[in-house]
């Protein structure tokens, strides 16, 4: 993992991007507008693989710790980039507002995010603008709703004698 400050001199485009130390890992907080640009710069700096992309719903935990200059939003897209040459990782956390859950696609920089963005769309309802195949991937294609959102109930099988109604 990249220790905080490791990237600072290496990628000039990162000037002005808020960063934080999360349990010893370097985390960057680019805005939605600069997200693809920052990822492209990191890719040029040797981070040739996007090892992971997922979405997080902070509905039940809005007051999380964020560096100065980052306004909390309900959703986050979390991207983990990997540089094989330096054996370091860096994590990007992009704030995505609830009212407009759209994030630019990373597909044209890292084609390996194709399945991961489809999964994030399917389970969390984040639309990736420009994604070539924005269909559901794990749920059936006629499914309604996005199951990993915090306000989507898990459902219960009613237990006899308990009379416990499910959340939905």
């Amino acid at each position: 993992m990249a220790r905080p400050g490791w990237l600072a001199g290496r990628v000039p485009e990162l000037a002005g991007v808020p960063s934080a130390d999360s349990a010893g890992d370097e985390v960057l907080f680019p805005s939605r507008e600069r997200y693809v640009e920052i990822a492209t710069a990191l890719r040029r700096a040797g981070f040739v693989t996007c090892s992971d992309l997922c979405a997080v719903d902070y509905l039940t935990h809005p007051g999380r710790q964020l560096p100065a200059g980052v306004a909390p939003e309900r959703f986050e897209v979390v991207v983990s980039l990997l540089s094989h040459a330096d054996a370091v990782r860096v994590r990007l956390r992009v704030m995505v507002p609830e009212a407009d859950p759209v994030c630019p696609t990373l597909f044209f920089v890292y084609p390996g995010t194709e399945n991961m963005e489809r999964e994030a769309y399917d389970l969390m309802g984040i639309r990736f603008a420009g994604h070539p195949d924005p269909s559901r991937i794990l749920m059936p294609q006629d499914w309604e709703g996005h199951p990993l959102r915090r306000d989507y109930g898990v459902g219960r099988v009613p237990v006899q004698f308990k009379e416990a109604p499910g959340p939905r």
Partner: protein
Amino acid sequence: MNGEHLEPRPGDDRESFDASDNSPRPVAETDEGSQELAPLDETSQVELLIERGGVLRLPESDALDPDAGDAAFGAGETMILNIGPQHPSTHGVLRMMVELQGETVLRSKPVIGYLHTGMEKTGEELTYVQGATNVTRMDYLSPLHNELVYSLAVEKLLAVEIPPRATWIRMLMCELNRISSHVMWAATNGMDLASTTMMIFGLRERDLVLQFFEKVTGLRMNHNYIRPGGVAADLPDGWEDDVAAVVDTIGARLKDYDNLLTGQPIFRERTEGVGVVSPELLLALSTTGPVLRAAGVPWDLRRSTPYLAYDEVDFDVIVGTAGDCFDRYAVRLNEVRESIRIVRQILEKMPPGDYRTQDKKVTPPPRARIDESMEALIHHFKLFTAGISPPEGEVYVAVESPRGELGCYLVADGSNRPMRMHIRAPSFVNLQSVPAMLQGGLIADMIAILSSVDPVLGEVDR
């Protein structure tokens, strides 16, 4: 994509239903289109690039050019063929849609989700103590690696140190699990290529490892053995002899594999030069594990970002040269040999001591202490009712599973349940490279190629 494929089902009167019901309903976002391989004239240029495996037409450029693909292909009659989800050679419920011209694969698309059971959602409902039981069911051929990555992530959130013996026990079990997973792969690969002898061989060797697992953990699969804070129990008496017998037997029997497959002309004909991909393409497609190493990239998390005690044992990272199916076979077979090497070193170096941390907030007290100490009783009760509550934070931890980088992203909100548990499943990501391997090959090679990627559908769909 467009939504024309979604024909309204009979009796689907959603419009009238909405008018009478004012309660909030989830927004129907079902217009994003079909998951299937669409006819050629309805497929966009970029989608075509994916399905033909050509996302890196311009390897030097920074960004992918959506207009780089040539739509003018497939002159003459083509056919879209469905293979799976119930097909013995698709390794579980994987469905492949391929467009064929004669016997040549023009483009292809894996369709997944048939085994989706919402394990990430379930993980948010379970406490940190219960979580290992859930993740172990994802990749059912290497359950211990799933438990390991989850436990490492929870321990990183908690910032607890685990004793050396627990680390080495974890390493021993994970390497044995790698052996069992790779010989199981050799078995299914052999069966796909019509070598039923290989299937029996592989299952036979795997069973040796599973019998040892049963002796240690009580179960042959889904062990819940590696837990946050250490492991569930110490190794049983005489484990050294058992492990030595297992690795001696398997090490000797690997010669049979060589005799049966490695030098065999039919096997080499079917695998050499089949499903070749370049390392640049695999890196862009986020591929990891033996598939990437077979293309010549020496990337193994055990070596490059060591976890557990992998920096204290001696082993080689196996790489291939051609990146074809045969190299993927050879890499896995030699990784079994390296794992045996590691296991032999663990046998010599296993330190004495505790097998789990003595932090009372993480580890339950021994049964005997509960009878004599009120404090122990409280700790025991609190641990199994409320569980552990790590401080707020988010961590990403990755380990090298038999299929590649297995990652766990955990978000803690200070309560006793993870707010988000995401597993980066190597099979799920590696499946993206399949269209690139299939393109231009024969339909018969598809079986060999799919098998060589080693997808475990429990992990793909989670």
